[in-house]
């Protein structure tokens, strides 16, 4: 899709403020030139251009270092006062590793980093053809030892761009087995390589790498991640099924198994419910049309959905909340929160009540909750529960101060009143009388209490 010119204009103009400007109506050219000079002087680009040929030859071709301009520059830099000290303590490379002195190739990191700058960040006006010089010269590093020294040197410079460049070359010029083996002991390079493969989406090679390194969990996760690309739900389910046997940690294997089971069920529930909805026979789908498909939703969303549409179903069906709770070992508290929210949303206060009612062995009922009653009241109020429902749960809050605060917040006047009565606090009760509606039942209740001679007020 193409954006029209007007659209684009609109975008640019839509921001309400003018971009930074400076008076440049006339004389633009001079200013441009001036600031280009400034750029150049800042970056020292002009200088670089002059001697870049030499440097490239020096650093990448494998010739001994010693060209005139190089040494002139070296001398100059050694004469120049070292203004800031070096702090890094990268250990130097083993220099005795081969018959001829490889280290001279890298005479200081500077050479490599210099050329790399030039290589990967060539100067503005540089003709394209010049890069190829380097591509060729990288290929001069043929022996494994040279390649590895090149890599270690790149790591020593701390320039990720250079590290990756060398890795790309090694990937092309070494067999996987050898490359993987060598990377194992080079963590920094390894991480660069993994990131490069991830970004360029070389899935298969990355999996092989993980396997070779024995990083089985990473391998499993990477494979599992692939499911995100699969949009067809049946194919995704089958793929997830195949993931269950991947070498996850036992804990994660369980989660992946759950993921598969959940999608399997969602597919079944979705098919049935879609039919029920279009059939128009099931009341709840008519009253509360489904807003979205349940496919690929998290478990708790699925549970909520089932508590909403399939609450009364027996445990035998896939969509029954009880079945889901059991299959996925949902914690009691989690189940309560979800069921409560779903039933409250439907204003099924009877179900809400039943959730908390338990019978002891003598047959007495009492309210029990894995969740604090203040939290219960909060969930109910967020679902617009009426005061009559709310006050029942607010009244069960143990902490007196919290109970009063909540009762006031939710306007459960009777709870406030009875709590003050229990506290035998006449002053607070009197004060509260001003907050309730005049002539209301609450007011009458307060008056009744205040005139009750049986209560021994503390104040």
């Amino acid at each position, binding site marked *: 899709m193409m954006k029209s010119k007007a659209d684009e204009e609109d*975008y640019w103009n*839509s921001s309400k403020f003018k971009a930074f400007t400076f008076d440049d109506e006339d004389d633009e050219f001079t200013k441009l030139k001036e600031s280009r000079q400034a750029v150049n002087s800042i970056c020292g680009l002009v200088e670089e251009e002059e001697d870049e040929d030499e440097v490239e030859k020096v650093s990448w071709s494998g010739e001994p270092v010693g060209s005139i301009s190089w040494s002139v520059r070296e001398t100059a830099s050694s004469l120049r*006062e070292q203004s*800031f000290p070096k702090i890094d303590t990268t250990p130097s490379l083993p220099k005795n590793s081969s018959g001829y002195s490889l280290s001279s190739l890298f005479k200081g990191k500077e050479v490599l980093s210099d050329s790399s700058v030039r290589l*990967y960040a060539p100067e503005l006006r540089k003709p*394209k053809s010049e890069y190829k010089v380097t591509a060729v010269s990288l290929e001069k590093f043929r022996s494994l030892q040279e390649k590895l020294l090149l890599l270690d040197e790149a790591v020593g410079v701390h320039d990720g761009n250079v590290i990756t460049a060398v890795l790309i070359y090694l990937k092309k010029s070494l067999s996987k087995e050898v490359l993987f083996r060598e990377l194992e002991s080079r963590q920094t390079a390894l*991480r660069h390589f993994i990131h490069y493969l991830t970004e360029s989406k070389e899935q298969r090679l990355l999996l092989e790498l993980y396997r070779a390194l024995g990083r089985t969990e990473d391998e499993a996760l990477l494979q599992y991640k692939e499911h*995100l690309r699969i949009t067809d739900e049946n194919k995704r389910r089958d793929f997830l099924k195949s993931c269950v046997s991947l070498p996850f940690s036992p804990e994660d294997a369980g989660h992946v198994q759950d993921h598969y089971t959940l999608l399997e069920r969602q597919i079944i529930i979705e098919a049935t419910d879609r039919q029920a909805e279009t059939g128009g026979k099931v009341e709840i789908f008519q009253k509360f049309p489904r807003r979205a498909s349940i496919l690929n939703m998290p478990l708790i969303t699925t549970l909520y959905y089932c508590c909403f549409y399939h609450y009364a179903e027996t445990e035998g069906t896939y969509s029954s909340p009880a079945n889901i709770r059991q299959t996925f070992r949902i914690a009691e508290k989690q189940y309560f929160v979800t069921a409560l929210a779903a039933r409250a949303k439907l204003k099924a206060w009877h179900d809400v009540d039943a959730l908390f009612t338990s019978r002891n062995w003598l047959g007495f009922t009492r309210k029990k909750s894995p*969740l604090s009653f203040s939290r219960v009241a909060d969930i109910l109020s967020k679902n617009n529960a009426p005061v009559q429902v709310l006050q029942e749960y607010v009244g069960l809050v143990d902490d007196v101060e919290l109970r009063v605060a909540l009762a006031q917040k939710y306007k459960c006047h009777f709870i406030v009143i009875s709590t003050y009565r229990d506290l035998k606090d006449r002053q607070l009760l009197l004060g509260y009388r001003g907050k309730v509606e005049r002539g209301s039942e609450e007011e009458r209740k307060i008056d009744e209490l205040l005139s009750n001679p049986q209560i021994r007020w503390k104040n």
Partner: protein
Amino acid sequence: MAHSARRDSPELPDFSVLKRLARDQLIYLLEQLPGKKDLFIEADLMSPLDRIANVSTLKQHEVDKLYKVEYKPVVSTSDQLCFLIRPRIQTVKWVCDVVNADKAAGKFKRYKIIFTPQKFYACETVLEEQGIFGDVSTDEWAFYLLPLDEDIINLELPEFFRDNFLEGDQRWVRTGGSALHLFHSIYGPFSKVYGIGRCSKMVYESWREQVKEGEQKARQAEVGTVFLIDRDVDFVTPLCSQVVYEGLVDDIFRIKCGCVEFGPDVTSSDKSIKVMLNSQDKVFNEIRNEHFSNVFGFLSQKARNLQTAYDKRRGMDIKQMKTFVSEELKGLKQEHRLLSLHIGASESMMKKKTKQDFQELLKTEHSLLEGFEIRECISFIEEHINRQVSMIESLRLLCLLSLTENGLLPKDYRSLKAQYLQSYGVDHLLTFANLKQLGLLVEQQPGETLTVMESKMGKLVNDKTAGKLTDAFSSLAKKSNFRALSRRLSLVPKSDEEYDLRVPRDMAYIFSGAYIPLSCKLIEQVLERDGWTGLEEVTRLLNGHEFAVTGSNGADLRPQSDAQRIILVMFLGGCTFSEISALRFLGRERGYKFIVLTTAITNSARLIEAMLDNHV
């Protein structure tokens, strides 16, 4: 907003030259492709570009149409296409598709890719692999420094954080060095550099190399002191809820490149407006660093003053009225507009925050910071997860718990992770793997005795010689040691003392007096001590990598000179507005001026989002 400010704070240098520099470089590059051309701009470069140039600038240099890079086939009739992009493989692949599609259709065009701030070899490899190397010319636009405000400079590289700290990719190290180098060459020379963190060290090295390569001119320094700090030195601070006005606005509305979009709930109309938030906005400038609880009072006082000023009109004669209209009215109207915006924003934020039980959330955070009633905190987080309250928020709290407690007990870790996956989806397994890798959310390791040995080992090994060893210890090396650090540096003031937020006594005010940000405390301590002496235990707890170096290039070293008291703080991996507020406070107290140079402005949500992997 009376602060006991020292009056001799030095003046900040002028950063507008940076914009001009970037602009002229861009123009130069555009001129390298003479003639009419269409320009494709990477989405996240649009706002930064907007700050330094406008459409007419581009048009003047023969840019015909502007497009956003959308990874879709291109419909353009121009025979010259220019792409202004970040050096990302995905984007370059898309450019290759565009070029190859043209080739297949027999169209011959000229193409140019301008990478900013630099190009990567991996990107050029893509061009090569796709067979279009040579068909496309490439350039670099060294746009490193975008001044967002008089004391904030941004690299606008949010991916720096994930690439460097999670992936372990050092591609941006040189970029950091170059940014510092550019700053140094205009506002330096620096005479002191302090720093902490692995990346900071590498950036310092890269900068030093670049200084060595380039020419140095003797000049009067404007900024003499630099402090480099890695984001992973302090993860706790950016994960806390922000309660200072600017930070809160960022948390709720997301400030993008110094600009925020206020929706209809703020503007109380049916339109959204974009507003620049910086020191130019006089109202904002007075409240940005204030604790939110002070803002309302301040705004209503302002509103009353404004009313009085308007009321002056009454009883004016025509001449007075004329002067009033020409001299004061415009300013008053402007102030009026700003005031109503910020009042609207405050109201909207209040509403949102009361809805989500902000008080309780803050209480939990403060308990975590204090190490108090951890069980209650865990059940608060659990309920948060159970009720499927924001997925990001839940992770943030889990990370805070892990960081402050040095990891979760295995039992808690398992149970919370399982519940999290149930609430937000099993694909967050990938997110948990990332959080573990980064050390943000980990299981406590059995056998704490290992740590002593490990810290000794840590000094001996480095990634070149003992990769495997480091790997084995890495989960231990990432211990946050928050509690111990907090004690050493007195980060958490005693809770029994009253804290008057109107008259802040230390940087803790940015977190309601509950916590002094570790990052800023380190900066304060090092500046005070002129180095790390006396902080040995602290740096040990932070896994080392601290440094303090003095240059000797004839720069002005008198500690009282202005340049020495202007301190550039470079955050590698991002910093929050709260941290900037804290530094401004510190500056006012001690007579410093801080300039913040950051790879991006971050906050808890951005930090956590960078760790998500549950999408393709």
